[in-house]
């Protein structure tokens, strides 16, 4: 561990925090499991870690310890207990790297927010990054090195590592997940050099391999596609989910929102072809439910129409094949092609990762031909490391060519395709598995080494635009884990290095200071400090280039699934991703943005297929493809392509911890090496069993009169119109919804003369990505209640996204509406509370006084938005000491029997007030951002003072599009909405029947 021997003070803290020797001592001192430091994080140990961490942060101000520097992003003078501080670091998942700020409270990280200085985050984050902090405190995290299932120590493992030197040529293999870390890359290169014939393999279930191959075909080099949606006037998305699944999805969303400003009349247009609803499809002006296997044909038809009817020249695309495919597209292809051709240089075509490389190449050719290169799209060539595939690895293992296999994270025994029997193959070598948890792979491995969380160790990463990102720890490893770079160091360095040393060396060579860290070089130290402080190395991002398309494109086929030959589409999950977040309770309980499903995955089928097969919602069904079979429940989703069955990955893990146990069904069983994202040939069979799905909206099947009422009511709730309608009648929103007589108050209304907080939600740019929900979850200590309670309708979310479908269930429009407590000025909840536990503040916040609440729940009954949540039980009872560390100390943890609801993040209002008072000024617009608005990638949520005429929120209030939800109840809500404006293509609008007449009311 620490090499820093001259710093006595630090050394003792180091011992306190965690060292193997100290742990041994402790075990000797308290034998018989007293305080069990190894298997459980006791209160005593917690205090030790905390004191160490606090001291760690305190030290920064007065000295410069060689190793444990933790520079502040916002640097207070010295350390003030109880003051949250933020540190810049980076979150990496698959190919996605996000610059984030981690909030630390008295030495424990409690919240992840986007790094506002980092171009690809802009202060926003996604759900995964925000929820990742919970993984840190997962009680099921691995706490010790295991050797053949028995407790061992890091020293024993290090001893064992010395035997590596004797490995035969080619006897060592490394399996890694997708990693962008430059230091890991360097170490792996060193490893290959040192162990002749050793090879590095990579496995990532959710990958962009087809896109890369398509780029190779087009440009002859691997590229990272850089998008700029703010410049796009027309976007065509073929199953790409550009607003969510792209590595720069946050930036894409922001750019897309920028190009969608009804007030200025600047409106882009989005066409989406997809088999299952994504958030991109939800935002589309025209969405065409299309089988994934037929998308290929649509792309060809679009290219053909561009060439033959719009005079766009695509020399690298086979003309004969274009001609052959011209007729294959749907009836609107002609109109879309025309729209694209009209907006040459300002359009964008994106193809999903599930589509073959050929189609990606075709897409590259189309973007080039439309002159989009350099405007909406550019390419960043990069050094793609040459890794073997997991298929090759199993072949080598089976052939007995590998003696020792080092697996860096992941869970290949669980998440490899069904036709690769990794579990069996790995038994043919000595395996070492580095992992945060004891998962299926760890159980089979000879050695298991606990891995650090990214908030516990040093590291680095490379963002999609080439920015060099720094990863820094906020806390000592809670359970004594090791970083990837530390275990690799055992192999490549004579004297093993810490993650800190590796990260610094890596930075050193990148920043041009050579391979060795210069001693006493103030310039280097300054740069390093700036790098860690900012979270990235300024100026290291690279601009995308224009690349000439040289490769030709000539093949393509149309496969049409039908009732006997269904299409299987395998996608990553919005909650557990590929399975790595199975034990993350926040993500598990976060409703899928479209299905509103929690804690499970289901086979999503279309209403038409449901009618044909008789399979209803929550029926168990048998899914079989190529002789592989699983059973899982059915979810009927409007807008699903007719014969397409979508399943999400990541569930059904037998080795999951307490949270994820028994959650969902393992769909890797349906995946095969040749068809990672699915194929046709699926059979669906009813087996006559039922399964309860926990869904947060439409808990039960809606009867006909109810469904009709929803269709009637929603246009008044989620108000929307076409851009033409808006131009012709800018006040059209005022004529929608229920008409009422003049609204008068029963009481004398209060005047608000000071601050008057309000929130605007712009439905035009809200994509429904769930980031706000997760922001609220982690900011406000929202309880997680589990599947049973959710299926009873008792989820605790203060902020929810209401999703409605409008029109034809086979091809509906989808709307999203975030709903939080509207802080009504004439709040119906306040009048009915018998003990006056909910009251108004001078600034118009509707506050819950938890310690006055007796829990009659009358307020909830009388709340027309149903945003109040009741603590039916003591929801925090089962939380372990470790899990409690994630709680935000600025927000009260609610007791059993108490009502709770959104506070407009009153703690943030108060801290802004304190700050303004200290500085002797008023609170300025923008000083306060609630957690939901803070994380929103499209800035759809704006908060501020309605009495300040110049504030952003006041201007939105005055805008024509603003309206109050349920305005006829005269509640005077402080949360108001901006009507959604769509920009349909008039040529298509005339044709499509489902679009007419929904705004009639």
């Amino acid at each position, binding site marked *: 561990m620490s090499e820093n021997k001259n710093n006595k003070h630090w050394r003792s803290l180091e011992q306190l925090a965690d060292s193997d020797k100290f742990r041994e001592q402790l075990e000797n001192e308290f034998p018989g499991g007293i305080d069990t430091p190894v298997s459980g994080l006791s209160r005593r140990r917690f205090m030790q870690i905390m004191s160490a961490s606090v001291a760690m942060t305190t030290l920064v101000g007065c000295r410069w310890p060689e190793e444990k520097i933790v520079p502040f992003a916002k640097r207070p003078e010295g350390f003030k207990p109880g003051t949250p501080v933020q540190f810049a670091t980076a979150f990496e998942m698959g190919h996605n790297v996000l610059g984030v700020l981690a909030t630390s409270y008295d030495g424990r990280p409690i919240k992840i927010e986007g790094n506002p200085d980092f171009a690809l985050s802009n202060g926003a984050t996604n759900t995964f990054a925000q929820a990742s902090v919970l993984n840190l405190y997962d009680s099921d995290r691995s706490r010790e090195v295991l050797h053949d299932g028995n407790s061992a120590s890091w020293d024993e493992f290090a001893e064992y590592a010395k035997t590596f030197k004797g490995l035969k040529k080619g006897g060592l293999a490394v399996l890694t997940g997708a990693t962008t870390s430059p230091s890991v890359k360097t170490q792996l290169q060193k490893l290959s050099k040192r162990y002749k014939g050793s090879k590095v393999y990579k496995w990532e279930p959710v990958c962009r391999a087809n896109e890369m191959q398509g780029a190779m075909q087009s440009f002859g080099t691997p590229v990272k596609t850089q998008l700029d949606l703010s410049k796009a006037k027309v976007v065509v998305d073929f199953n790409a989910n550009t607003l969510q699944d792209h590595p720069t999805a946050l930036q894409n969303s922001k750019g897309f929102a920028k190009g969608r400003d009804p007030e200025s009349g600047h409106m882009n247009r989005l066409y989406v072809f997809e088999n299952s609803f994504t958030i991109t499809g939800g935002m589309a002006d025209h969405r065409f439910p299309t089988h994934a296997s037929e998308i290929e044909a649509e792309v060809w038809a679009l290219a053909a129409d561009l060439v033959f009817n719009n005079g766009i020249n695509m020399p690298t695309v086979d003309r004969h094949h274009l001609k052959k495919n011209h007729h294959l597209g749907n009836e609107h292809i002609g109109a879309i092609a025309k729209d694209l051709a009209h907006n040459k240089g300002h359009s964008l075509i994106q193809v999903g990762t599930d589509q073959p490389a050929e189609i990606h190449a075709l897409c590259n050719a189309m973007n080039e031909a439309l002159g989009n290169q350099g405007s909406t799209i550019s390419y960043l060539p990069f050094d793609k490391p040459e890794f073997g595939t997991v298929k090759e690895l199993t072949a080598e293992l089976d052939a007995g060519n590998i003696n020792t296999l080092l697996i860096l994270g992941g869970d290949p025994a669980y998440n490899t395709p069904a036709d690769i029997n990794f579990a069996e193959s790995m038994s043919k070598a000595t395996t070492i598995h580095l992992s945060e948890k004891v998962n299926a792979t760890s159980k089979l491995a000879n050695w298991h080494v606990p891995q650090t969380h990214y908030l516990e160790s040093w590291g680095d990463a490379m963002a999609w635009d080439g920015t060099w990102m720094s990863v820094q720890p906020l806390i000592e490893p809670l359970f004594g884990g090791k970083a990837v770079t530390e275990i690799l160091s055992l192999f490549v360095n004579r004297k093993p290095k810490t993650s800190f040393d590796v990260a610094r060396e890596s930075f050193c060579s990148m920043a041009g200071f050579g391979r060795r860290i210069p001693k006493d070089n103030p310039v280097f130290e300054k740069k390093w400090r700036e790098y860690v402080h900012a979270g990235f190395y300024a100026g290291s991002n690279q601009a995308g280039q224009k690349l000439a398309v040289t490769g030709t494109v000539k093949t393509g086929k149309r496969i049409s699934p039908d009732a006997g030959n269904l299409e299987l589409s395998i996608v990553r999950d919005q909650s557990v991703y590929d399975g790595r977040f199975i034990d993350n309770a926040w993500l598990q309980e976060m409703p899928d943005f479209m299905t509103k499903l929690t804690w499970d995955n289901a086979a999503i089928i279309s209403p038409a297929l449901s009618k044909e097969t008789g399979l209803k919602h929550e029926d168990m069904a048998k899914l079989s493809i190529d002789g592989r079979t699983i059973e899982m429940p059915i979810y009927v989703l409007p807008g699903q392509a007719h014969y397409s069955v979508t399943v999400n990955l990541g569930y059904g893990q037998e080795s999951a911890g307490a949270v994820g146990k028994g959650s969902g069904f393992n769909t890797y069983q349906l995946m095969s090496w040749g068809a990672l994202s699915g194929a046709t040939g699926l059979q669906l069979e009813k087996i006559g069993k039922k399964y309860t799905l926990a869904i947060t*909206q439409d808990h039960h099947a809606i009867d006909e009169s*109810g469904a009709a*009422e929803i269709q009637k009511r929603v246009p008044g709730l989620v108000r929307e119109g076409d851009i033409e309608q808006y131009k012709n009648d800018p006040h059209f929103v005022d004529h929608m919804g229920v008409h009422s007589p003049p609204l008068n108050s029963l009481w004398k209304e209060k005047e608000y003369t000071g601050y008057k907080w309000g929130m605007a939600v712009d439905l035009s740019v809200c994509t429904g990505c769930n980031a706000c929900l997760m922001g609220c979850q982690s900011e406000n200590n929202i309880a997680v209640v589990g599947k049973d309670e959710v299926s009873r309708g008792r989820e605790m979310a203060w902020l*929810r996204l209401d999703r409605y479908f409008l029109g034809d269930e086979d091809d509906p429009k989808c709307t999203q509406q975030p709903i939080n407590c509207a802080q009504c000025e004439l709040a119906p909840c306040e009048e009915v509370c018998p003990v*006056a536990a909910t009251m108004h503040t001078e600034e118009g916040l509707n506050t819950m006084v938890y310690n006055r609440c007796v*829990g009659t729940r009358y307020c909830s009954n009388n709340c027309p938005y*149903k945003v109040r949540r*009741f603590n039916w039980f003591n929801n925090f009872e089962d939380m372990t000491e470790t899990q409690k560390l994630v709680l935000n100390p600025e927000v009260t943890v609610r007791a059993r*029997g108490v009502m709770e609801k959104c506070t407009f993040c009153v703690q943030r209002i108060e801290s802004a007030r304190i700050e303004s008072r200290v500085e002797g000024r008023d609170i300025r617009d923008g000083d306060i951002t609630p957690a939901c608005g803070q994380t929103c990638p499209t800035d759809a949520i704006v908060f501020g003072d309605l009495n300040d005429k110049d504030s952003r929120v006041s201007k939105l209030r005055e805008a024509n599009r603003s309206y109050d939800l349920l305005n006829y109840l005269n509640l005077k809500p402080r949360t108001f909405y901006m009507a959604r404006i769509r920009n349909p293509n008039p040529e298509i609008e005339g044709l499509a029947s489902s679009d007419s007449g929904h705004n009639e009311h």
Partner: protein
Amino acid sequence: MVNDPLNNTADDPTKPTELVLGGHTFTTVTEKVSDIVLERKTPRAWYIAFAFTSGLTAILFAMIAYLFVTGVGVWGLNNPVSWGWAIVNFVFWVGIGHAGTLISAILFLLRQKWRTSINRFAEAMTIFAVICAGIFPGIHVGRVWLVWWLFPIPNYQAMWPNFRSPLLWDVFAVGTYATVSLLFWYTGMVPDFATLRDRAKSKIQQIAYGTLAIGWTGSHRHWHRYEKAYLLLAGLATPLVLSVHSVVSFDFATAQVPGWHTSIFPPYFVAGAVFSGFAMVGTCMIPARQWFGLKEFITLHHLDNMNKIILATGSIVGFAYATEFFIAWYGGNPNESFAFVNRAFGPYAWAYWIMVSCNVITPQLFWFKKIRTNVPVMFVMYIFVNIGMWFERFVITVTSLSRDFLPSSWDYFDPTLIDVLTFAGSFGLFFTLVLLFIRFGPILAMAEIKTVMPDAEAHDDSHRSVGDYHGDVPETRGDK
């Protein structure tokens, strides 16, 4: 039927209906009623019934204990439906508690002599029903240990309760009603307790009834005070009969939930309460008159009259249902009209139609005298009305909440086993108290009954014995 010695339902305008049959004298009345308590061996059926009901009561308290330890989540409530069976049961039991006071107070003031043989029993039922009702609002709050904050009691927060909240009005309305009903019931029983004290043979009984009789000697002064007090209490209780359920209905009417927010609720709730109260009095009285041989006191004429009231109030309830629907359409509020369409045809249509069949169709059969005077048939009817009135409260409370303004929050309420057992347990408590009263209390108002017997009327002054007079006698007679 006319020749049946126990049938006094024939309408003969030439002479008053006999309210006590079987040739009873004052002495036999006293013997009959007090022997139930003092002399007769407790029937085996009583023990069986008591074992059963006290078992149910034990379940009630076990469920409450479980609730207190765990949380309100043990019931089937969810986010839109924050009030479920607890509130349904509360309104149901309060409604049942209406019959007693109506019979004792309003019919007393209206000089309806036939009330005398059923009033004691009905009053007792009122008290027991209000006890059952009072349990539910108390246990349904999230933090039951703080429920006293609902009362305007000085506390460390130095806060008044919120006087704008109908729940607070409930506290006062139900509290007042329970207090006055209890006083009224007890005051009426004092002379009878004295009778029991005088006839009791065991020491324990003498002490117990003696204490309850608070020194009653039957002196003129006592009777004078007694009658004044009784009259005043009757006057005090009469507006409460109308007010308590009106206030309970404000819980719903003042909220803005579609299906709750309607001004018809106060009269509609009061009519429903009287309707259900009479049905429950009948449900208890029919077995009691059977088993304790009280057919001569609780005659068919009494039952016939009660059924007429059930018919009248049942029709009001039916009319209210129709009016609600009319206003939902005529009012033009789309949310309210949907609330009613949803009741009749939505997921809770089953509950709605149970309610309509039991409450609208059943009482209409009482237009026929044959049905009004057929004891087994009317007993079945009473059961139907009880079921129907419980469902009425369920329909109002749950269906309205389950689908309010935003369709995103719509949900369906499923009760849990705890819900069911708690409700069943409340019946256990109710019938346990009824059984205890039958066994240990004067179930008929002996003193009052004597005043409606012919003996009290048609003879000269010398026959008027002290203690047998009750103030329901025309003034002119004494001056002869």
